[in-house]
C-alpha cells in the first residue's frame, strides 16, 4: 500500500464524513433555512399557554412564519408572556391581528396560530417589541370537560 493511495482514500473518507455532517445539518436538523435570517420580536400575554414550548412554531394559515423565542411570567399579574420571533419578511401584520394557541391534530404538539386582522390605516402594523392585544389561551382538556359537565347539569 503506497502512501499516495492511502492519502487519497483517507481524503475520500473525510469527504464522506463531511457530506454526512452536512446532510445531518441541512436535511435532518433543517439548519440554515430557519436558523439564520433576519427576525423581529413580538410579544403576547396569555391566560394559559398549555403545553406551548420554546421553539414551537408560529403559523399563519398553516404557514410557519416564526418560532416561540421565550416564555416567561409577568411579575405583576402572574400571566404568561410569550415572545414570538418572526421572520423579517413577514413584517406587515396589522395591529388588530390576534394570536391563539392551537393544537395540531388530536394529540399533536401545540403551536401559535396568528390571525391577521383588518388593516384600518395604511401604516397601522405591528411594530417590533409590541404586545399583541387580542389573545386566546390554550384549550385545557380538564376545563373543557368541566364546562361540558356543568352545562349538562343545567339541562
Amino acid at each position: 500500500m503506497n502512501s499516495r493511495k492511502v492519502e487519497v482514500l483517507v481524503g475520500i473518507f473525510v469527504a464522506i464524513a463531511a457530506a454526512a455532517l452536512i446532510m445531518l445539518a441541512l436535511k435532518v436538523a433543517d439548519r440554515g433555512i430557519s436558523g439564520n435570517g433576519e427576525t423581529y420580536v413580538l410579544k403576547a400575554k396569555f391566560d394559559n399557554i398549555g403545553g406551548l414550548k420554546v421553539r414551537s412554531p408560529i403559523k399563519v394559515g398553516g404557514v410557519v412564519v416564526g418560532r416561540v423565542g421565550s416564555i416567561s411570567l409577568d411579575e405583576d399579574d402572574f400571566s404568561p408572556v410569550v415572545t414570538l420571533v418572526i421572520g423579517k419578511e413577514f413584517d406587515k401584520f396589522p395591529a388588530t391581528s390576534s394570536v391563539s394557541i392551537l393544537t395540531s391534530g388530536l394529540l399533536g404538539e401545540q403551536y401559535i396560530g396568528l390571525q391577521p386582522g383588518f388593516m384600518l390605516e395604511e401604516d397601522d402594523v405591528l411594530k417590533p417589541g409590541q404586545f399583541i392585544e387580542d389573545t386566546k389561551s390554550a384549550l385545557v382538556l380538564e376545563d373543557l370537560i368541566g364546562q361540558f359537565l356543568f352545562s349538562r347539569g343545567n339541562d
Partner: protein
Amino acid sequence: MEWFARLGRSTLETLAGVGRAAYVLFGALVARPQLKNIPLTIKQIYFVGVQSLLIIVVSGAFIGMVMALQGYTVLVDYGAEESLGPMVALSLLRELGPVVTALLFAGRAGSALTAEIGLMKATEQLSSLEMMAVDPLRRVIAPRLWAGIIAMPMLAVIFSAVGILGGQVVGVDWLGVDAGSYWSVMQASVEFEKDVGNGIIKSLVFAVIVTWIAVFKGYDSVPTSEGISKATTETVVYSSLAVLGVDFVLTALMFGTH
C-alpha cells in the same frame, strides 16, 4: 490477614495500572507535536477509519431499517406514523450512532491496535525503538491515538446519516409513510446543537476511551502469545463496558433535564 493482603495487593496493582495508563496517554498526547509524524497518523486513519467504513455503513443501514420497521408497527396503532422520522433520527443521533459505532470500533479497530502493539512489544520492536533514542510513545502510540480520536466521530456521523436514510427506505418506500412528513416532522424536532452536536461530543469521548484502552492494553501486555490474546480480549470487554457506562452518565448530563 491473608484477605487484607490480597485486597491491598489488588488495590495497589489497580492503581499502578491506572498510573501506567495515564502515563501512556500523557506521553502520547501532551508531548510536543511532531510534524513528521503526520503521515504516520494519516496511515493509521486509513487503518482504523477507512477500513472500518464498510462495517459501519452496513450496520448503520440495517439498524435504521430495523428501527423504522419496529417503530412503525407500534406507531401505526396510534395513527402517529408521522413520528417515525423523529423517532429514527433522534435515537440514531443521540444514542445508537455514537454507542454502536464505539462498540463496532472497539471490535474492529481496537482489538487490531492492541494485537499490533502487543506483537511489537513481544518481538521487542518497541525496545529497539528506545535503543535508537526514538520514543515509542510518540512514534507508535501517538499516531494511533490521534487516528482513533479523529476517525471515530466521523464514523459515528456517517453511521447516523446512513441509518436515517435506511429508515427512509423502509418507512417511506416500503411501509408508505409520507416522505414529506417523514422529513419535515424530523426537521421540526431535531435541533442541530442539541442532538447532532451532543452526539458528536459523545462519540469524541467514546473515541478517547476506546483508543486509549486499546493502545494501553497493547503497550502494557505481557509479551507472550498468551498475554497478547488476553490483552486483545480485555480491550474489547473493557472498552465496551466503559462505553456503555459512560454513555449513561453523558446521556443523563446532556438530555436528563429539560
